[in-house]
């Protein structure tokens, strides 16, 4: 994937480098903290890469520009943070309905409403359960460090085209603003034939094509929804997660993204004391790594879900474990910046030590 050139960059920049490496040729943005590094980077990088950067008039417009570029089969991306991603939901729903590929980045900040500009995982429901209208799903990738932000952004483009579906990258203000060494590579050569059987190019020498989500003819929408459901089911194979020290663990802490990273520090510390604790970090939030959680439950492990919100992913953990086990929950409220110390006590408590 990468050729080993190491850069010391922010998570936001890692996302931008990942998009470049994946052959992204159109970027549509709108300013909002804490993701401004992405559009700023892309405003310089896109023209150099022979692509296009547009600062849209709003996130509504940016996401609809993404829809337009996607309809042409050109690799394209938009990025924002929570309030802006709410505005993108219209286009995301239309893209899902019209089966168009595109990458949408959310560097989650505190909410609801204007909230703050600090980190939060308050957009889990919006991202994973479909933030827009209609019966649809988007793949959701949740990087936990800057290298992953790069790698998963590259992957997001491939998945978007594989499934002709929008793909979300869900990070947060911690990931966006922290700097780490990241191995980056040269842009891949995107296959010219990508999207060849559906993309709009002008109907030269072939029947004309329509990309739409309106289905008024009798039975047509039902048929479309069944087709989409089968596609979402086929995404199961894309499940990704990290299991850390879970083998002999009595307690498995389930946490994603930056919070998973912080919990890992806690696990390391408690392991030094001989406490049998591990971390399960979902990397794909949709599809959710339920089967792997079930396996851990079958081994008799107990669970604690830790989130930077007041309880969202916990619902998926409990659904996954349903009938086998339960999970305790610790929610750290958006608005404050968590440290390993904040999670240590809840983990000890769940361990009973």
């Amino acid at each position: 994937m990468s050729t080993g050139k190491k850069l010391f960059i922010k998570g936001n920049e890692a996302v931008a480098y990942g998009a470049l490496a994946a052959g992204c040729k159109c970027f549509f943005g709108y300013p909002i903290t804490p993701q401004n590094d992405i559009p700023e980077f892309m405003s310089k990088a896109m023209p150099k890469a022979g692509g296009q950067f547009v600062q849209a008039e709003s996130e509504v417009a940016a996401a609809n520009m993404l829809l337009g570029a996607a309809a042409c089969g050109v690799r394209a991306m938009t990025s924002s943070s929570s309030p802006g991603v709410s505005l993108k939901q219209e286009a995301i729903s239309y893209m899902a309905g019209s089966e168009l590929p595109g990458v949408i980045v959310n560097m989650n900040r505190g909410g609801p409403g204007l909230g703050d500009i600090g980190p939060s995982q308050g957009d889990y429901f919006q991202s994973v359960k479909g933030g827009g209208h209609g019966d649809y799903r988007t793949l959701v990738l949740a990087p936990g460090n800057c290298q992953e932000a790069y790698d998963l952004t590259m992957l997001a483009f491939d998945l978007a085209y594989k499934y002709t579906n929008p793909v979300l990258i869900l990070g947060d203000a911690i990931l966006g603003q922290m700097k780490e060494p990241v191995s980056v590579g040269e842009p891949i050569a995107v296959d010219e034939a990508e999207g060849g059987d559906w993309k709009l190019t002008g109907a030269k020498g072939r029947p004309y094509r329509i990309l739409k989500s309106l289905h008024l003819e009798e039975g047509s929408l039902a048929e479309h929804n069944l087709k989409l459901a089968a596609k979402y089911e086929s995404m199961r194979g894309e499940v990704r997660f990290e299991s850390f020290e879970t083998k002999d663990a009595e307690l498995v802490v389930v946490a994603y993204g930056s919070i998973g990273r912080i919990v890992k520090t806690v696990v390391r510390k408690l392991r030094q004391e001989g406490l049998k604790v591990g971390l399960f970090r979902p990397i794909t939030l949709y599809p959710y790594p339920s089967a792997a959680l079930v396996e851990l439950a079958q081994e008799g492990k107990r669970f604690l879900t830790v989130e930077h919100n007041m309880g969202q992913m916990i619902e998926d953990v409990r659904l996954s474990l349903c009938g086998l086990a339960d999970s305790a929950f610790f929610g750290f409220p958006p608005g404050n910046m968590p440290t390993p110390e904040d999670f240590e006590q809840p983990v000890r408590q769940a361990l009973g030590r």
Partner: protein
Amino acid sequence: MTEKIAFERPKPLADRATHYCPGCSHGIVHRLVAETLQDMDLVENTIAVSAIGCSVFLYNYIMVDTVEAPHGRAPAVATGVKRARPDRFVFTYQGDGDLASIGMAEIMHCANRGERVSVVFVNNTIYGMTGGQMAPTTLVGQKTTTCPSGRCRDSEGMPIRMAEIIASLGGTAYASRVAVDTIKHLNQAKKALRKAFEVQVNGLGFGFVEFLATCPTNWKMSSIDANKRIAEEMIPYFPLGDFKDVTTGKGVC
């Protein structure tokens, strides 16, 4: 005696009955668009963006590659299309509710950026598809299902004149208002449409044509009376003509 065909269906226009009501102008504007695409040899190079309104089924009648935009967002979608495929001809086809109400931000900024796209704007002073509600273009005194005693200037404001507004923006190369109620106006309309397409093809900027159009069903008028209303009520408030044309210098500052 031999027959002479004086009037043929343009090739990009599908040979099928439309879903439009009798006397509706959408069919006429569709034909003008299809004719102009054919005349300018653009058919196989075109990507159309359809909008939400009665004309959402544009793609059932004009046989070019088409993507359907959410309500009001066609100019943003067209921006994405044009940026992704700068060498293709891109146009949107939008109603007055779509363009001048929910999509006001998108049309203004698309024009202001000077996106090389063309916009076909059909102003029938009403929301047709949803059953005749008030539009931003509804004339003062005009009755609709949501202003049953007539649009009132004090509470609902004045109808918005889009062609003039679009002409005032820096990225606009051509902005015109036309009507499709008489043969003379039809000929003018066709010329204006061609110009709005040409400024895109020639890379001059954003092209915009507003068509004053009928909606007999929601106006609760016969087709003939609806057609008359264009001259009697609409043109006095929405004057016809070019408001900006960079090729002649008109309206350019």
